[in-house]
Structure formats: C-alpha cells, structure tokens
C-alpha cells in the first residue's frame, strides 16, 4: 500500500508549487490546482480505507500496517526518529475525515474566498495544512507525530492570520500558536520522559502491550505520582492544547478571526481533534499503565464540555458559538476516552469517542460552512444583524438545521448515535458524570437552536442589500456534508474502530437513548420558546441570572486572566526585569569594570606630580623596599 505516500506528498507538492508560484498564477488556476490535488488525495484516501478495511482484518482483529518507514534521524543507541505511514482503523478513519472535509473546504473556498487578496497563498496554506494533518494521523511514532503536530500548528497560525492587515487576526493567530506551543512543551517533555524510560518512540512498540519496555520506569515516582503518569499527563497536555481543553481553550474562540472555511477545516473538524486522536493513539498505554491519568482526562473533558456549553449559550458571534460548541463536543470525546476501558464492552467509550469524532467532524464542518454561507450573505458575524434568513437562503437553512439536529443528538441523525454511545459509556463509568453529560447534551441542544432560531427565524433585519443564496460551489459541499451528518450515524462503527481492533457491537440502551432524545428536544423547545420570535424572555432570563450570565458572557474572564498573567507576570514580571537585569546588572558589571579601571586610573594620577624630587622619593623608597624584600623574603 505504498501509494499511501502519495496522500502525503501530493498536498506537499501542491503547497510548494503554489507557494513558489505565489501571484504568478491567476487565482483561478491556483484554486483549481489545489482542489484537484485534494480530490485525488480524497480519492486515494477512500481507496485506502476500502482497501484497509477489506484486507487488514486478520482473525477478527484489524492489523496495523506500516507500508512505509524510513529512518529520518539516527541517534546513538536505540533511539531514532522515523518517518513512516501507519495504517490502523483510527488513522484510516482520520484519513477519510480529513480528506473529505478538506476537499469540501477547498471547493467551498473557491467561491467563498473569491477575489480575496492572497487567494493563491490561501490555497497553498490549505495544502500545507492538509499535508501536516495527514502526516500527523499516519505517524508511526510519537516523534513524527510531534513533528507534524508542530506543522499543523504553524499552518493553523498562518491561516488564522490570513488577513494579516487586521490586528485582531494577527493577535488571534499569535495567541493560537503560542498557547498551543505552550501545550506542546508539555507534549515534548512527555515525549522526552517516555523515551528516556522506554528507549523508543515507536507506537508499535509502545502499544504492543509488552510490559518490558516500561520496566525501567516502574517504581520511579515524582511528587507522589509515578513518572510514567507524569509523562502521559504531559503528553495529554499537548493534546489538551490542540484540542482546546480547559484551561488551554482560550485560543480557539479567537481563532475564528480566520476565514470561515478555515475554521471549518481546522478549528472544527480536524486539527482540534488531534488531541483526542493523540490520546486514542496512545490509548493502550494510558489504559494499562496510567489509568489515573485517563480518569483525569475524563474529568477535564467533562468540565471543559460543561464550561464551554455554558459560555456558548451566551455568545452572540455565531462563529464563537460554534467554537465553544466545538470545545464542548471535544470535551465529550475526551470523556468518552477517559471513561473507556480496554477491549470489548469495556472499550465502548473508546469506540464512541472515535465515532463522535467522525460524526462531529461532519456536522461541525457543515455548521461552520453553513455559518460561512450566512456570513457571506450578511457580511457580519453578529446574531443581531441576522434573523429571518430562512426565506433568503433555503439550502443553507436546511443544511444548517440538519447540522443542529445532529449535534443536538436527535434520532436518527448521526450525532444521536455517537453521543448516545458516549453517554452509555459514561454511565457505565459513573452515574454522576453521566448525569452531567446528559445535562450538557441538553445545553447543547439549547444553544444550537438558539443559534439556529436567531439566524433563520426571529425578527427580520433590514439588510442593505438583500441576502441571497450562496453560489453552487458553496452549497454543494454543504449538501454533501449534510448527507454525511444525516446518515453518518448509521455506519456500524464498532465493526471498524475499537480499542483493541476486534469488532464490537454494543447493545443499545433504549432507556438512555430515549431519555437523551427527550433532553435534546427539551433544549430545542426551550430555545424555540425564547428565540423563535422576538420576545423579552431572553433578556429577562439573562437579567435574572445576572452575575452568572455576565460571567458566562465574558467567558468566565479566562482571557482576562491570561492577559493579566502574560502581561504582568510574563512581560512585566519576567521579560522586563530580565532585560533590565541584563542591561543594568550584567552589562553594568562589565561596564562597571571599565568604570572602576577609569576611576583607579584617575585616583592614582597623584603619583605623577611632575616634581622631580617626588620622583626621586618614590625611587628611593622603591629601592629600599626592594632591598628589604630581597633580604627578608
């Protein structure tokens, strides 16, 4: 299956060519080249998926296939960094997701970005991102993953900052990069610790279940936790950064400054789930050796999910609502992983999480692209500027509704299936957590439909030029994604992706399913009551909630806290003092040396009086001292 290399190389090639050509090509040419390449990639991915799932199942277990592997850098000893391609159920699944969404975004952007300055650059960056993301998922070892992890980060940075003349976009890109970089630091240290004890980077070895490789770490503890826990926790921090887990989530809402298709691709469907993917990738290690960390992940996920959902209920920027919704949903996935065990029924969470990843990618991309379509029409992100758009944009309206229903977990849309599995797994793990998650599901339904009603229903705004349906290049991807969102849940996911590779079909917990749907519907109804028509209800509710509402609306002031920390601790507390110290103390001490020398030089000038008798005096004294010295020393 060496042709899989092409999946990686084609986008890279596309990036290089588009990057070098830059403005020499017409925008249309650049766009078509990019899209064409991506369609080939997508085709290859589908073929790979088909080929993999049809051939790799040996004895009921999906085997890991490494069609390509090359040593990139050899270190002394056993350590080496390889570049290769690893095919297993989750990576193949991700290939499909990424190439699908990416292709959709490529097509969509042809119209959405039309006429933008830097169109060619945009496509180059998209290609770069696709390359990096694909490289990330097929990584055969943790270091390769880290390499592409960083590349993904930078392409995200470049895309968020695409409108580089807009200060907000520049700030947002910077923020995104730095926050994720900070998280990556944890990832890196985790890798270092892990590799120190295991002497390998390879996923194959790490996940082989061979306890021998962790032997040297056993018994080593630091601050009460085993060193392996530390390593895995640090690695999770890396994932948490990319996946915007609390408290590293702050970059994601700001990242919406980027072009909307980018948000759909990177900040909804693909890159942000990299953290989930990372945990899933190392799942055997987590579950076997550091279950404590895994439980921590579950709680972090749950909290983040709740936290983001609450905020999402109060935001007015439609992209930000979607962004918080994304955070919340990724929290879901994390919970799914966190509560999962290994193999069979125990492993439901794992499977569910991956399933949710898949469905979420589809419906969230759909929602973002839909939102983009709306923004394209209205030229604004703000809910207040919208309303009643269902008449003007029927297609968008329909697909958006599908997306909202999917995310709200309404049967039989895809979200229902995946979310339900996660809830099931959670209840299996802890009832309390399960109830919490159910509540969040309700919240999700509420804020999604708040969004939906605000955009497409409610009071009709007076538009300067009346909004119109988006062009075909935009609606086709929407429809395609809507299709997936609608029917994606019917895929028997457990057959393909499970924690141990063996197929698994969970029995549906009907009670739970029905309750979930009911909760979802409650949320929807609540939203309909409040937002379907222009009423005073929302204001009253928000007033009665008062303080809490303000907290949520201001995202619990986490941004401000960060700002405070970076400004006061990082810049004023560290950087400025260090540079002051450097200029004045270190530099000063060197200059001080010179000053002291000068000072001494001035001080001793007294012996050079110009009086010859004084000279003779010193002369004689010197002589006598010399005599004295020579005699008595």
């Amino acid at each position: 299956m060496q042709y899989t290399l092409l999946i990686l190389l084609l986008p890279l090639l596309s990036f290089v060519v588009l990057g070098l050509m830059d403005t020499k090509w017409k925008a249309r040419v650049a766009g078509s080249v990019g899209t064409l390449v991506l369609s080939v990639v997508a085709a290859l991915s589908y073929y790979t998926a088909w080929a993999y799932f049809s051939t790799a199942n040996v004895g009921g277990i999906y085997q890991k296939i490494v069609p390509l592997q090359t040593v990139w850098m050899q270190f002394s000893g056993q350590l080496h960094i390889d570049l290769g391609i690893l095919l297993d159920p989750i990576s193949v699944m991700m290939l499909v997701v990424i190439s699908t969404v990416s292709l959709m975004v490529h097509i969509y952007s042809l119209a959405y970005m039309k006429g933008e300055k830097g169109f060619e650059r945009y496509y180059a960056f998209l290609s770069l991102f696709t390359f990096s993301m694909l490289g990330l998922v097929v990584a055969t070892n943790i270091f390769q993953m880290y390499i592409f992890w960083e590349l993904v980060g930078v392409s995200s940075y470049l895309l968020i900052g695409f409108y580089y003349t807009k200060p907000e976009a520049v700030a947002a890109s910077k923020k995104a990069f730095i926050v994720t970089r900070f998280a990556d630091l944890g990832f890196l240290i985790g890798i270092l610790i892990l590799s120190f004890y295991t002497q390998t980077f390879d996923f194959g070895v790490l996940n082989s279940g061979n306890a021998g490789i962790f032997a040297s770490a056993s018994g080593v503890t630091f601050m009460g936790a085993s060193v392996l826990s530390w390593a895995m926790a640090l690695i999770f921090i890396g994932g948490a950064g990319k996946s915007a887990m609390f408290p590293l989530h702050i970059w994601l809402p700001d990242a919406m400054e980027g072009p909307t298709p980018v948000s759909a691709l990177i900040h909804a469907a693909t890159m942000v789930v990299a953290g989930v993917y990372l945990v899933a990738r190392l799942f055997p290690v987590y579950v076997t050796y550091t279950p404590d960390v895994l439980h921590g992940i579950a709680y972090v996920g749950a909290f983040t999910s709740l936290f983001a959902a609450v905020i999402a209920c109060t935001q007015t920027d439609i992209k930000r609502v979607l962004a918080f919704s994304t955070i919340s949903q990724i929290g879901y996935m994390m919970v799914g992983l966190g509560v999962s065990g290994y193999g069979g029924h125990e492993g439901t969470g794992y499977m569910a999480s991956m399933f949710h990843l898949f469905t979420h990618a589809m419906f969230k991309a759909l929602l973002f692209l839909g939102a983009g379509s709306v923004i394209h029409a209205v030229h604004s992100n703000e809910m207040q500027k919208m309303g009643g758009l269902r008449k003007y944009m029927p297609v968008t309206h329909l697909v958006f509704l599908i997306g909202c229903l999917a995310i709200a977990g309404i049967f039989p849309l895809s979200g229902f299936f995946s979310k339900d599995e996660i809830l099931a797994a959670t209840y299996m793990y802890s009832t309390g957590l399960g109830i919490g998650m159910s509540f969040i599901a309700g919240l999700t339904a509420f804020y999604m439909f708040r969004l939906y009603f605000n955009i497409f229903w409610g009071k009709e705004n007076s538009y300067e030029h009346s909004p119109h349906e988006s062009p075909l290049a935009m609606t086709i991807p929407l429809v395609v994604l809507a299709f997936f969102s609608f029917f994606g849940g019917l895929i028997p996911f457990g057959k393909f992706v499970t924690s141990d590779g063996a197929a698994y079909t969970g029995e549906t917990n009907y009670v739970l399913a029905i309750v979930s749907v009911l909760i979802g519907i409650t949320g929807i109804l609540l939203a309909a009551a409040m937002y379907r028509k222009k009423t005073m209800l929302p204001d009253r509710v928000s007033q009665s909630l008062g303080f809490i509402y303000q907290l949520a609306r201001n995202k619990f002031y986490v941004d401000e806290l960060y700002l405070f920390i970076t400004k006061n601790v990082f810049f004023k507390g560290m950087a400025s003092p260090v540079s002051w110290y450097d200029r004045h103390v270190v530099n000063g001490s060197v200059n001080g040396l010179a000053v002291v020398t000068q000072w001494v030089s001035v001080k001793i000038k007294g012996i050079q009086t110009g009086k010859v008798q004084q000279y003779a005096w010193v002369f004689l004294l010197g002589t006598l001292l010399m005599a004295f010295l020579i005699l008595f020393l």
Partner: protein
Amino acid sequence: MSPLLIFVLIPLLMMIALFFTNNRKQVNLISLSGSLLLLLSAIALVVLFWRERTAGNTAQMLFAADTVWYREFNIHIATGVDGISVLMVLLSAIIVFTASLVSWRIESMPKEFYTWFSFLAAGAFGFFISIDLFTMFFFLEMSVVPKFLLIGVWGSGRKDYSAMKLVLMLMGGSVLVLTGILGIYYLTGAETLNIVELAHKNIEQPAQSILFALLFTGFGIIGALFPFHVWVPDGHSSAPTSVSMFLSGISMKLGAYGAFRVAICLLPEGAHQLAWIFLILSGFSVVYGAFAALGQSDLKYINAYASISHCGLMFFAFLIFNETALTGAFLQMISHGLITALFFACIGMIYSRTHTRLVSEMGGLMKVMPFIGVGFIIAGLASLGLPGFSGFVAEMTIFIGAFQNSGELQRWFTIFATASIVITAVYILRVVGKVLYGKQEHQAYDSLADAYWWERVTMITLIAAVVLVGTMPSWFSNMIQDGLAPLVAGLVK
C-alpha cells in the same frame, strides 16, 4: 603546504586584489567571485571528504598536513578536517558568501569594507581547518582587528562603544584561552600542540579542572555564554548587516567549536568535574536569553538575545557528553549560524529601507516588501524550531540527547531549557506580528522597494540551506558523527 590552506589564501588573495581596485564594480566583482569561489571550494571539500571516507580512509583528520613553523615552541601549521570541521567550513563559506552579497551596495568605502571583511573570513576559515592549538588561537585572534574596524567604521548606533566592548570582551576570552593553551602545552609536557596528539596526553588534577575552567570560560565569552554575553547585543546591533551575520553566524561558533575541541576534548576529566557549573550557566543562558529577547524593542537586539539563547543551548549540549547531544550541538551550530544570518540579513534589509530598527515604528511591511517579509517569517519560524527547518532538528536532537543523560541535574535542566521554545515563539511572533503584519505605521513605507537581486540570492541561499538541514538532517548528523566518533570515546564515561 596543505590543500586546505586555500580557504585562507582565497580571502588573502581577495584582499590583495581589492587593493588594486578603484571602483565599486571591481570591488563587487572581486568580492562576489572570491566568496563564490570559497563556497564552491567548501562544497568541493564536502564532496571530496565523503569520497575519501567512502574509499575507506579512516584517519581522524583528512587532508592533514603539517609544516613546522616555530620549532622552539613546537608550533606547526597543522591542518586537517574531520566531519565537523568540514561542516563548519561549509557554514562559514555560506555565510561569507551571503554576507558579501548583502553589502553589495554598502555606502561608504566598499573597497576597505571588503578588504577587512575578507580578512575576517580568513580568520574564521583558518580556525576551522587548524588542528594546532597555536594556529587555532592565531586565527581566532586574527579577527579582532577587522571586527573592530568594521563595526566602528561602518556600524551604526553606539558603534564606538559597541566595537570597543566587543573587542575587549573577546580579548578577555582570548586571554583565558591563551592561558589555557599554554597550560595544556606545558603541563602535559608534550612536544606538540597538535590537538589530535594532545588528546592522548593527560594532565593531573586539579590542574586539569583549572585549565578547563579557563578554557571553557574563555571560549564561553566568545560564544556568548551567560553571564559573559554582554558584548553580543551591543556588538550585533551596532555592526553593519554583513558583519552582524558574520558575528552571530560564525564568530560565536568559533567559541563553541573551541570549547568543544579544546576545552572538552583535551581536558575530559576537568570537564566532567566542572560540567555542572557550566551546565547550570548554559541552561540558564537558554531561558535567560529568550526572556531578555522578549523585553527588547530593537530588532537586532532581539535577534542578539535570541542568539544568546540558542548558543547557550550549544554549550549546554556539549556538557551532556553523549553523542546525541553533541551531534545536536553541532547541528545547532550550523542551524543557528544559518538562521541567524538569515535573520540579520532580513533585519539589515528592512533597516536599510526604513532606517529604523525599532519594532514599534514598523508595521504592515509584508504588503510593501513581500519577499523580505516571507524571508523574515521563514527565519522566524526556523528560529522558533519549526519542523522542516534546521532549528527543529538541532534543538530536538539536543533535547533528546540531553534527556538521555542519567544525571538528574542534566535532565532537570533539559526540561528547564525546553521552556525556551515557548518563549522563543512568543518573541518571534510578536516581532513578526508587529513588523510585518498589521497596519502600516508610516505612509512613506509605501514606496519602499522589495528585495534586490543580490538580496534575493542571499535569502534564497540561506533558506535553502536551512531547509536542507531541516529536512535531510541525517546527511549532516552523519558527518558530525563521523567527526565525533573518535572523540566521544574519551568523553563518555
């Protein structure tokens, strides 16, 4: 006479040729052809070196030659290269080539400028090809004069002060180095100054530790180790562009190279004894430099402190004493040399157009000069360790290598040092954001020209090199390991 001496002879011949020039065209012609010749020779050297190696030549130093110079003091003109020095020569050649291009249109006295610059280059090449302590020191010191004049005459800002400070501090380093060299020579009682032969001699403790401290500190000053780095910010920022490139690209590497070749390899026991002190200093240097860079507002200062941070990492890696870390250290030398040269080149280009280096006075330059802007961003991304560029490879090799050390201190400081990658990201992005992105500060910037052809060649050459190292690291690490293999045996306990 060794064939390697052409690397010294070419610059000297350039000087002579420049003496007879009388207009800018001729000066440019000579400097370009000379530096191009150097670059080609360096590439040829790499090729020949590999051919020799694959042909089965296992001598530690290839192309070695040895001519007695001063018999009385056993001073020989001994030259030879192993994998490491070959790469260093290549690095120097690239930087000399690009640096001479950058100053293509230097305003005043081009003839003198290039004369001194060639002199500077001769010193650097001489240092890397020498394997005799005296000649090494000779070439190391030779650069003092040209540096002083180049900064003082063609520099900007507080150039008098900076030039003086730079030279005096470097001289201070040299003093320690010279004491150490004399110590090694006389305390081993060896009849040679050849570093290959001296490696087999032993010096008693505690003399060895004292000498190590002297030598390492001395080279540390040259390589900008905290707290002896203070010449770097002022020196780099006052120097003209090409000299800044040279200073941070090559000069600081002289210190690091010497610290390894002389201090560590010849005095391994002392090194092990005192490693912890310098480990703490260099580890601290890494984070300290990054933080200091964060607090600057002048582009050159930022890059100067970034250099301190990155060079600290080299010293840090040296003191880990394992092959991986050492490989990383040399990769970092190459990588940092290229990246920082690229950075300084871009800064110089921007400065020559906007006539300011203050971050706050720029903005939105990306629109006006996209080529330089892209170069600048690439330099920045490479500097913050983005995969695909050399910085990542080097840093990761160092971190992985350093973490393989069994010492607690080493590992803790590795973790400490990794923090720099975040801080680096912060200041790099801050600069990129302020300078290139955002709104244009001044209307006058609208009419600024993008890169001229010589500037394009400079940037493309450097970027190509950076990408090459970043994507094909094993070519380079193999070369380095080729040089390290015989040395490491004596180092690793």
